[in-house]
């Protein structure tokens, strides 16, 4: 009945990334040999990228609920209530493998994909962020990747018209063969006008919208779940070209037909295109779907059913249209110059039926396609704990000012202005805090409400101790949102790891997820969406475990927002939180002593919360003039950043007696903030003491240099020059 060309062989099954026992499962499920198209459908639905077969079990441990959560994981993006009847819709997603192969298009289509996830839910994107990890700067491919990825992100976001307001960029040799491109998008919608993938109603038209289908990225989703090796070159033609112009039109057209009441269900065509989107809409609504591929708008002649089902052409959507609304919906799409085609309808059979040229090419049980996907409890081993490093055991030749200068000009700490100036971060006229601060702040409509947005993770910590590292990534994200005065509401995560079939890698994944869960729970900072990217390995070498956290917070009055720049001279500088001089896994150890060892700083979540709430209250009451959280690089790097942002120097008090000065200035103890206050006899000290919060005076602002007791002065302008120099010089030295 179902044509079977080519024949299904074990080799063909393996080429589809399906293991023999997974194929057995398919046979058992459908009671016959699958057709070629069906095999393709299974490979798409059951690969790591779509089925989360290695991570699903563990992701269940994440806290996903709070009174303000409207939609947690399971839809295209998470949705939270931000007050005034409005909702923030957001998610983060990786495009690592495609970006390594074709950085400009790979990164661009990554941005396009995540924007689509957000506007599929009925939200207009108001901000984009990203988290980028590249190999060692001396690796021959790094510069080319940085240039291409940054241009690609800018090329897509700038043209689409969303401000790219924040992100992070790091370098490490463990990303030499696998760069990471994690893109986050945030949209705004009315809280009672969110659109979902769940189809309702039998016999309703399933409509295809957007750009035409070509042979792009066929098996892109499988590629995204495969390890790189010798064969990587051959997988190349699967890279897609993005068309931000088409996406912009798709956005406007989608929002217009949603407002016109035409949409019952909507799902973007992302990874594994038509297959995933159709199955998801049907399965979620307990309905069957029948597709007729003869009606799919194609860019190329002679496309087979297999190709149409697996194409990952960009800028496409699938919708179930409300009865009698087809014509109105079509007119809107035509006005925007986009394709509109009825390609199927909903049924009550719970079957996923695909027809092509009069033949049935696939007929599968729709719920089982997703529900019966393999689920693995992969073996894992715990990462061995490392010793706490005693600063007295270190032999340090660098002076404190010398170490600061080296750190501030190093790849990880150097200014990323060269990058974010290629992103339009001002469009839409709401960017109140631009890139360079602790969190970006984007005003909501005409204010006074605003969102605080950031992405964070410290992979070195995660490698040394996945659980503490996972906790720390969430805590730092929460802290950054707090430092601008906002209340952290929810997070999205992007879990980037190596090959989960290796127990030690699986152990990293499990540990990080547990850490994230613990911190998210303790901080009331639920997970509402996310993405998992595994098999980030080349020749058996995995990336550092990198669970990127993207956070969203709300500021009810944007006028109260805090920034990190010193505001005036003669102000008192305070540090909130205890400084013990924790050097394990610190930036100081890595950059100055070329060591990556020791236990990372432990995160006490109760203190994290207590100190954060304290700082937020100070900001809200207008008691502090500048606020900066202390993260990697420690106190002195935080102070230097506050000085460089303002051009104002400071005279600082040294460490308490007996503490190693390097450990004091560069240690990475958690739950700390540096604040400044205009009044010398500040009430802040008393308040902190009353609350039992460690607080210490660090010095006072003024002059044009940083003066440390017993050290040569550090001229702020010169420091800034170093800070700004590294990236432009690095990028100027090679190819365009």
């Amino acid at each position, binding site marked *: 009945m179902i044509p079977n060309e080519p024949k299904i062989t074990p080799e063909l099954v393996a080429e589809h990334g399906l293991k023999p026992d997974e194929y057995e499962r398919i046979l058992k499920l459908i009671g016959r040999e699958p057709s070629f198209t069906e095999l393709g459908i299974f490979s798409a639905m059951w690969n790591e990228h779509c089925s989360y077969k290695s991570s699903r079990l563990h992701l269940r441990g994440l806290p996903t609920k709070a009174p303000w959560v409207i939609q947690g994981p399971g839809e295209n993006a998470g949705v939270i209530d931000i007050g005034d009847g409005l909702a923030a819709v957001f998610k983060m997603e990786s495009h690592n493998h495609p970006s390594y192969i074709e950085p400009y298009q790979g990164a661009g289509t990554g941005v396009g994909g995540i924007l689509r996830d957000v506007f599929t839910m009925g939200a207009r994107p108001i901000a984009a962020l990203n988290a980028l990890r590249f190999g060692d700067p001396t690796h021959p491919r790094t510069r080319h990747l940085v240039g291409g990825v940054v241009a690609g992100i800018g090329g897509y976001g*700038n043209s689409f018209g969303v401000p790219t307001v924040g992100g992070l960029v790091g370098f490490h040799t463990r990303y030499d063969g696998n760069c990471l491109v994690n893109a986050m998008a945030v949209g705004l919608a009315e809280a009672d006008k969110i659109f979902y993938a769940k189809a309702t109603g039998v016999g309703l038209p399933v409509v295809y919208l957007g750009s035409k289908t070509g042979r792009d990225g066929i098996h892109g989703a499988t590629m995204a779940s495969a390890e790189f090796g010798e064969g990587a070159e051959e997988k190349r033609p699967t890279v897609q070209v993005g068309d931000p112009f088409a996406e912009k039109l798709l956005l406007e057209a989608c929002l217009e037909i949603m407002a016109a009441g035409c949409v019952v269900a909507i799902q973007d065509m992302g990874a594994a295109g038509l297959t995933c989107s159709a199955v998801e809409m049907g399965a979620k609504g307990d309905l069957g779907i029948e597709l007729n591929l003869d009606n799919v708008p194609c860019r190329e002649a002679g496309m087979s059913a297999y190709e149409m089902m697996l194409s990952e052409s960009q800028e496409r959507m699938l919708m179930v249209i409300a009865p009698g609304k087809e014509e109105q919906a079509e007119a809107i799409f035509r006005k925007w110059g986009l394709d509109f085609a009825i390609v199927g309808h909903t049924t009550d059979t719970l079957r996923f039926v695909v027809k092509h040229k009069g033949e049935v090419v696939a007929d599968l049980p729709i719920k089982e396609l997703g529900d019966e996907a393999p689920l693995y409890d992969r073996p894992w081993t715990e990462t061995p704990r490392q010793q706490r490093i005693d600063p007295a055991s270190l032999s340090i030749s660098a002076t404190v000012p010398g170490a600061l200068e080296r750190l501030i000009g190093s790849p990880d700490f150097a200014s990323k202005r060269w990058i974010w100036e*290629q*992103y*339009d971060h001002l*469009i*839409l*006229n709401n960017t109140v805090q631009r890139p360079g601060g602790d969190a970006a702040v984007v005003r909501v409509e005409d204010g006074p409400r605003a969102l605080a947005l950031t992405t964070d993770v410290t992979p070195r910590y995660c490698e040394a101790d996945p659980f503490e590292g996972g906790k720390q990534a969430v805590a730092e994200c929460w802290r950054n949102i707090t430092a601008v005065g906002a209340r952290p509401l929810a997070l999205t995560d992007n879990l980037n790891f190596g090959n989960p079939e290796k127990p030690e890698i699986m152990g990293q994944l499990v540990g990080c997820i547990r850490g994230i869960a613990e911190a998210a729970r303790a901080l009331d900072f639920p997970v509402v969406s996310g993405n998992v990217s595994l098999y980030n390995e080349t020749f058996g070498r995995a990336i550092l475990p990198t669970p990127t956290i993207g956070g969203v917070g709300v500021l009810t009055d944007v006028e109260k927002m805090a920034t990190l720049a010193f505001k005036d001279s003669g102000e008192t500088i305070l540090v909130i939180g205890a400084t013990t001089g924790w050097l394990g896994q610190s930036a100081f150890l890595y950059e100055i002593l070329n060591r990556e060892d020791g236990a990372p700083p432990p995160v006490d979540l109760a203190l994290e919360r207590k100190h954060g709430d304290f700082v937020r209250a100070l900001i809200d009451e207008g008691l502090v003039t500048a606020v900066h959280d202390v993260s990697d690089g420690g106190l002195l790097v935080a102070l230097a950043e506050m000085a460089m942002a303002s051009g104002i120097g400071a005279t600082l008090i040294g460490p308490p007696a007996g503490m190693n000065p390097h450990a004091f200035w560069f240690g990475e103890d958690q739950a700390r903030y540096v604040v400044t206050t205009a009044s010398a006899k500040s009430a802040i000290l008393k308040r902190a003491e009353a609350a039992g919060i460690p607080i210490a005076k660090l010095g006072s602002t003024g002059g044009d240099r940083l003066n440390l007791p017993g050290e040569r002065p550090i001229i702020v302008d010169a420091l800034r020059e170093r800070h700004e120099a590294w990236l432009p010089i690095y990028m100027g030295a090679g190819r365009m």
Partner: protein
Amino acid sequence: MKSAVILFPGSNREGDVARAIAGICGTKPNIVWHADSELPPGTDLVVLPGGFSYGDYLRCGAIAARAGIMPAVHAHAAKGGLVLGICNGFQILCESGLLPGVLVRNARLRFICREALLRVERIDTPFTRRYAKNAIVRFPVAHGEGNYTADAETLRRLEGDGRVIFRYVTASGQRDDEQVLNGAANSIAGIASEKLNVLGLMPHPENHVDPLLGSTDGRPLFESLASVLERA
């Protein structure tokens, strides 16, 4: 005052400029679809907004310059009506022949979003009358192709006729053609038509109208338009 903002497929700063006009001039502009053939009756000011019309494919502004509404914009300009083209709008004005020259890729080949310092070269235009003489203002730029290029004769004519309205300058207020951020000839940021009723500029005054966002240097431009068009 009656204004019309033209919406091309791919425009993306139409909302920013419409918001600035509504907030400063007191009346919301009409949003006019690119495929229309007429402007709303009584339109005083036509705005071509920023963005990537038609993806900026082929050349920036090239396809939009040939859109259905453009003959009406030409007719409006020929009658002496005011036309303001910002960023992509400036590119469209050049491509359509309403302004001379062309905007090509930035000299350093990268998109650039940053605040730029500009000198207001003359204040006897409908767009600049509310600026102080020789004012130095700060507007953001956000473009990949803002490198103003024209032949020597055109540049001479523009300079001779005083049609350079905005020029990039350094912090000390000097013109520096070598270091200009996008490579523009004569550090040109904005030029006007012979009758000074058509202005094209690369930077975005509409993004600097709110103190919360860092500067209000763009406001006088819209205040100038409002004062010129008050009667309407």
